[in-house]
């Protein structure tokens, strides 16, 4: 916006156990692009304990400047303690835009920061742009992914949380130089909240899979799931599903793809017996290659598929598995 003293973009660098969440790099990539177009600076704010090395990493990924807050009290994420340090920084540095990953940590922190600054916050953006005046143009799904909305913010900073895996992470440049500014930490002795215990979440991670074989309500009986799990196995991929199979208890929740499950971006996504509702498409439409098997030629999944196979998956998939195994056996014989 013209005539305001706010300028530049700032990214919240999310870390857990001194490991930067990859959404941060995606934000730096997008932030760099927007900053260059506007001719302004891109900075990052990093809070933690023993995270200085990561500050250099942020610079290699595009930040001009990193504001570093290091203290024992910031070792674990605490929305109140983080906010108490970020809010004064934003008041002083006055970036026009503050971007936060739409992870659970980001979605817990950003609203506190926005409310403290009495500024607007747009949740879960899937695209960002700027206009000539530097206003942020924010695109996000609304009504459970049924429609997309374009949103503007009239206050500063314009704060947005951005979905993981919708933007491209930049290639790190080891030669990039920038400035690391260490800030005095405001230590909050008692935030009203204490961590009693912490344990690693285990289980499948669909978001990192290269190949995903998903099935949907086209599966008639629970026992039939093995047919599709086997295809996933012979491809060295991960088995996923649409929501109905999760809701009826046949498939674990962490395998759900879609709006209320995981957003995935594998090299190859194979949808078997999935109609292609807006909520499902939301979670897989950005896969590199989409293959769909469905017996209904009018199924909407075919509108996003690179290769659509109209037929009965109960016939096609077992045949395919057999053919892949034959091919592999032949391949092994050769070597």
């Amino acid at each position, binding site marked *: 916006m013209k005539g305001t003293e706010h300028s530049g973009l700032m990214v919240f660098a999310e870390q857990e156990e001194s490991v930067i969440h990859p959404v941060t790099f995606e934000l730096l990539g997008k932030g760099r692009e927007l900053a260059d177009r506007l001719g302004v600076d891109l900075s990052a704010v990093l809070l933690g304990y023993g995270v200085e090395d990561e500050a250099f990493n942020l610079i290699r990924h595009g930040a001009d400047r990193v504001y570093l807050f290091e203290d024992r009290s910031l070792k674990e994420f605490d929305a109140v303690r983080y906010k108490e340090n970020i809010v004064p920084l934003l008041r002083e540095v006055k970036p026009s835009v503050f971007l936060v990953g739409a992870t659970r940590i980001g979605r817990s922190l950003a*609203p506190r920061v926005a409310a403290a600054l009495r500024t607007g916050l747009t949740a879960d953006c899937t695209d960002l742009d700027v206009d000539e005046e530097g206003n942020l143009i924010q695109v996000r799904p609304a009504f459970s992914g049924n429609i997309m909305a*374009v949103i503007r913010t009239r206050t500063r900073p314009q704060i947005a949380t951005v979905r993981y895996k919708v933007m491209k992470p930049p290639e790190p440049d080891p030669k990039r130089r920038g400035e690391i500014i260490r800030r005095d930490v405001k230590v909050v002795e008692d935030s009203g909240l204490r961590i009693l215990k912490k344990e690693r979440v285990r289980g499948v991670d669909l978001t990192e899979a290269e190949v995903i074989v998903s099935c949907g309500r086209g599966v008639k009986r629970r026992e039939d799931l093995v047919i599709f799990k086997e295809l996933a196995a012979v491809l060295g991929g991960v088995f996923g599903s649409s929501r109905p199979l999760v809701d009826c208890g046949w498939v674990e929740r962490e395998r759900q793809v879609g709006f209320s499950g995981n957003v995935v971006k594998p090299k190859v996504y194979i949808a078997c017996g999935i109609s292609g509702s807006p909520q499902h498409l939301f979670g897989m439409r950005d896969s590199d290659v989409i293959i769909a098997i469905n017996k209904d030629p009018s199924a909407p999944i075919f509108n996003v598929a690179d290769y659509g196979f109209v037929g009965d998956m109960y016939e096609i998939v077992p045949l395919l598995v057999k053919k892949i195994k034959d091919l592999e056996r032949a391949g092994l014989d050769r070597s």
Partner: protein
Amino acid sequence: MVKQVPDIERVRFDLETGRLDRSSAEGVTNPFDLNALEVGVQIKERLGGRITAISMGPPKAESTLRDCLARGADRAILLTDRRFAGADTLATSYTLACAIRELGRFDLIVCGEKTLDGDTAQVGPEVAELLGVPHVSYVEEVVAFTHEGITVKSDIGRFHYIYELRYPCLITVTKNVNIPRLPTLRDKILARKARVEVWDAERLSRVAEPDRFGLKGSPTTVVKVFSPLSSGRRGVILEGDAEELADRLLNVLREVGALKMERGNVD
């Protein structure tokens, strides 16, 4: 805090304009908010106390509050006023926080993880900030509670965390936290006769700045909506018998490098 939302499964969308036809579906209680209410009811059963259900919305949201009374709330407040209309999350949170201030002392505020229509998951933490209390989002399990505080489990990052929070505080809960009970017929009948208090902007004048309500108090605006389906990439569609299709599919998988042997060692 509970909100009435359009029934997403039934609501009709105009895919040309991306607009939804609110009159095409009944309002239902946001499902996560029923889990939030159930947390309150379970605490009340063991420790006593009173539950107030608060909602901001149009007059017809009264039915949602009546449902809350049938499910165990002791008091229900509907914040409704033309001046509250057009609110984004900041203005919504502000109005709800003012109403909670006006009510006086509280121990625990429970919200749903998110709403089905807004789907921001912002209102809970924003209310916590405006009231100056700590919060934990995405609570998967209530582990314990006493008269002093509550212990909850949340999967906020790559870890499960067990947090101990001291009252007053706020939590937002996921669907996994409990199974909301159904109201009995008797409770439903009683709730039909119970009073839902209606509060307008005037009622909050002791604690609120009216400029922070509704459209005026909302820094964000939706400038356009569009259908997400417009950007499809329909490729080739293949038909034939199963044998033929399986062969074609095998070829496609080889071409795109999806076969394990061609991707190298993945195990």
